């Protein structure tokens, strides 16, 4: 029989041993954890390559993802951390299921497809080029595995996986929600959709783009782009400040209509031209446009401060700045044109409609606010000056910042090549045709605007005169001052 003393001493002994083990365990954790974390760091940028191919009653989803993005899966290693290729398949399948299949939703005619089956997994060298085309990628993922004796470090390998989903028809309309953003700090998914009609459609998303319709109907594309345009204008502080400057002196929708219309027409022209690749693709072009946008804000604010602006003058200047802002919109739209499917023009026009709706919303909110401000807070002239000065200040700083960025580029004249001259002549021709059309319209319908001064004898001045007539008409209707 053990004495209580010996009991207590053995208890104390086992307790201290337990403490020792706990201490060792904690020490091991402290020492090992940073390394473990280091080995499983979230990668900075991850590029996922994907193909979606509906074929008969099956849809194949073929993906390539870097293995270092699959953070909690343990991959069998050998030697100095090389992947044990003989034993790796089960881990690759597990990683493919947890990190990819569970994160991706594919819909057929808006009905979610069931979980896919993994047909094949492969570990590949990062330099493998077979994902350049679906055929090569398919042959690669169904072809021979890397030999077991290949030494390749575990986190420098790519995981290739072929999933199969059951579908009703390869002619259905498919959507995909690739929720792969958790793979890295920045995840770029390059996806190619290969419908049975043979027209390959390429997409590139950054992060999680939400549900993407791979082959949208025209109204789906239109709705999507109206939304994009609407939120873009609400999101773009510089466009909003420009709009604010336009509104301050003319706080009436009627008076603003010609100004806003000029802005809309102008930015539509450059936006559509950009979408059809007519804008310059030089590196300095976006910084130039950004600087000009800031300048447009400063100019408008200064004009407000100086005062005495007429609608006609503002209309023309807004038209010019609208051309610049259109390029600015096009930069925002560049990454999203892929969602237009086969409805490029519809989508562009819808984007413009969205921008317009956004502008209208802002106007509807701003006008009464400004009215109230000038009525109850500050006298109109002083208020205009104060508000415009605040805007000018912000615009001025933007202009300097963006100008400094632009100034890092140095310019040299391009060589005069035949191709360049031909392009210049095309632009000149287009401009002449527009001027000729304007001239013809002005001649053909000279009495459309009864309140005007009548057709001028100077044909090129006529359209401006007509506009003046419209403006006078508006003044008469609203009784406002300019």
């Amino acid at each position, binding site marked *: 029989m053990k004495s209580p003393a010996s009991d207590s001493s053995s208890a104390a002994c086992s307790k201290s041993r337990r403490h020792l083990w706990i201490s060792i365990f904690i020490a091991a954790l402290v020492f090992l954890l940073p390394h473990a974390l280091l080995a499983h760091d979230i990668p*900075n940028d991850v590029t996922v390559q994907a193909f979606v191919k509906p074929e008969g009653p099956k849809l194949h989803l073929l993906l390539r993802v870097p293995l270092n993005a699959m953070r909690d899966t343990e991959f069998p290693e050998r030697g100095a951390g090389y992947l044990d290729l003989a034993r790796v398949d089960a881990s690759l399948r597990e990683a493919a299921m947890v990190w990819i299949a569970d994160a991706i939703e594919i819909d057929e005619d808006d009905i979610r497809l069931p979980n896919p089956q993994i047909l094949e997994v492969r570990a590949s*060298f990062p330099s*493998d080029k077979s994902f350049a085309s679906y055929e090569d990628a398919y042959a690669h993922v169904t072809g021979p595995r890397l030999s077991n004796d290949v030494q390749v470090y575990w986190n420098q390998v790519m995981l290739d996986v072929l999933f199969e989903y059951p579908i009703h028809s390869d002619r259905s309309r498919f959507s995909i929600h690739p929720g792969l953003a958790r793979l890295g700090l920045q995840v770029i998914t390059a996806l190619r959709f290969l419908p049975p009609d043979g027209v390959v459609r390429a997409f590139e998303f950054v992060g999680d783009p939400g549900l993407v319709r791979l082959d949208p109907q025209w109204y789906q594309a239109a709705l999507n782009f109206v939304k994009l345009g609407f939120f873009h204008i609400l999101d773009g502080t510089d466009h909003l400040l420009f709009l604010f400057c336009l509104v301050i002196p003319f706080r009436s929708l009627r008076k603003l209509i010609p100004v806003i219309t000029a802005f809309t027409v102008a930015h539509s022209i450059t936006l559509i031209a950009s979408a059809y690749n007519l804008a310059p693709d030089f590196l300095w072009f976006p910084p130039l446009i950004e600087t000009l946008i800031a300048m447009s804000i400063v100019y408008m604010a200064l004009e407000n401060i100086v005062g005495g602006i007429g609608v006609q003058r503002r209309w023309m200047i807004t038209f010019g700045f609208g051309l610049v802002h259109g390029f600015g919109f096009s930069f925002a739209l560049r990454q999203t044109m892929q969602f237009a499917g086969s409805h490029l023009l519809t989508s562009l026009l819808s984007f413009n409609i969205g921008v317009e709706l956004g502008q209208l919303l802002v106007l509807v909110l701003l006008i009464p606010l400004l009215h109230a401000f000038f009525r109850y807070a500050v006298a109109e002239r002083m208020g205009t000056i104060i508000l415009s000065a605040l805007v000018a200040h912000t615009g001025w700083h933007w202009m300097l910042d963006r100008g400094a960025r632009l100034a*890092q*580029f*140095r310019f040299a004249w391009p060589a005069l090549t035949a191709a360049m*001259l031909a392009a210049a002549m095309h632009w000149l*021709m287009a401009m*002449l045709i527009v001027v000729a059309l304007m001239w013809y319209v002005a001649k053909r319908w000279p009495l459309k605007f009864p309140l005007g001064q009548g057709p001028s004898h100077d044909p090129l001045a006529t359209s401006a005169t007509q506009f003046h007539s419209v403006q006078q008409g508006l003044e008469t209707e609203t009784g406002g001052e300019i």
Partner: protein
Amino acid sequence: MKRNLYIGLVFSALIVALGVGSTVLEKRAAVEAAGVQAPRFEVDPMWPKPLPNHWLLGMTIGVSVDAQDHIWIIHRGGSLERMENYLAANPPASECCMAAPPVLEFDEEGNLIGHWGGPGQGYDWPASNHGITVDYKGNVWIGGNGRTAAVAPPTQAAALNESQPGSGPFNDNMVLKFTQDGKFLMQIGHPGQSKGSNDLENLKGPAKMFVDKDANELYVADGYGNHRVIVFDADTGKAKRYWGAYGHKPDDTSLGPYNPDAPPAPQFRNPVHCAEIANDGLLYVCDRVNDRIQVFKKDGTFVKETIIAKRTLGDGSVWDIAFSKDPQQKYIFLADGSNEKVYIILRDTLEILTSFGDGGRQPGEFYAVHSIATDSKGNIFTTETYRGQRVQKFVYKGMAPVTKKDQGVLWPKKAS
């Protein structure tokens, strides 16, 4: 009415004239385009983004682009001037600056996303880093050209002479292999052990490496002290074969200084500065001071050579090459750190189509352009040694007819 008719006629005449003119010019442009075309580039002055931690680059003597289009460079922190290292002094002598770690990894946008390097357990870090290559498995290879005296921080005089970083015999007789995280994997050769160009165990100032994925073989341009290309098994480091100029057995007999009017040298001069394999299996070797590229089969059979800027003396004209990223690799981009330009060469005929760059420190100019690499989008990256000490990006802007043999500095152009 008559006046309107006249105006209408003038409009029509102008439009027709412009239409005819542009058609004629387009035809001429088509003829020009069907002639010689070459890739067109524009320097990106905004790349890379500023380094963190008041870090500076020293002589930047290697660049490589991996399969994810990450840009890897290696530089020599020891080549900075004392005043550039004030922050590293104990106590710090000022708020700025200090050398960045030797190996730096950038993403496509020019953000620094990784850094490591320097002496460590189990390997001999070079006294003077030279060349970096990311292989087809993603491993990182590093060479070196330090001499014994260069183990100590290089002097100003040594720092100014890239091909002679020290004054004693070449001590960096090894190449190192790491993972992308900087974990050491393998070393071939040992410091100070080289027995010359026929030694299978050691290198001598290895300048640049390339791993052939078909055979998993490492090709080393060897180098600053030896006169050969040597091939190793990339996993075991076992030497397999080597050869000198024209596929001859290499010979370390001094050739004397390069003479442009003498017959081509029968051996490589030092340094043998690059060894790159094209997709069709041809190996291109930079024989820097001999101003030539020699082309071989993988077994060392000599195929052809071309001389570039023959009158170039001193450091020579053929510093480093990179291939265009089309599957045929139609073009070679050759960095010439003596004449301060990059040549665009038709790989098939080795004919120079055009060149760009000039000496200077502005964007698009070069001072000792030392290394060159291309990414999957066709962009070019260059690094500069001596007092150039930077990495630059040249953005691929499509193909264009060749109008000038020497395009000069590729500053961004005004809109056409």
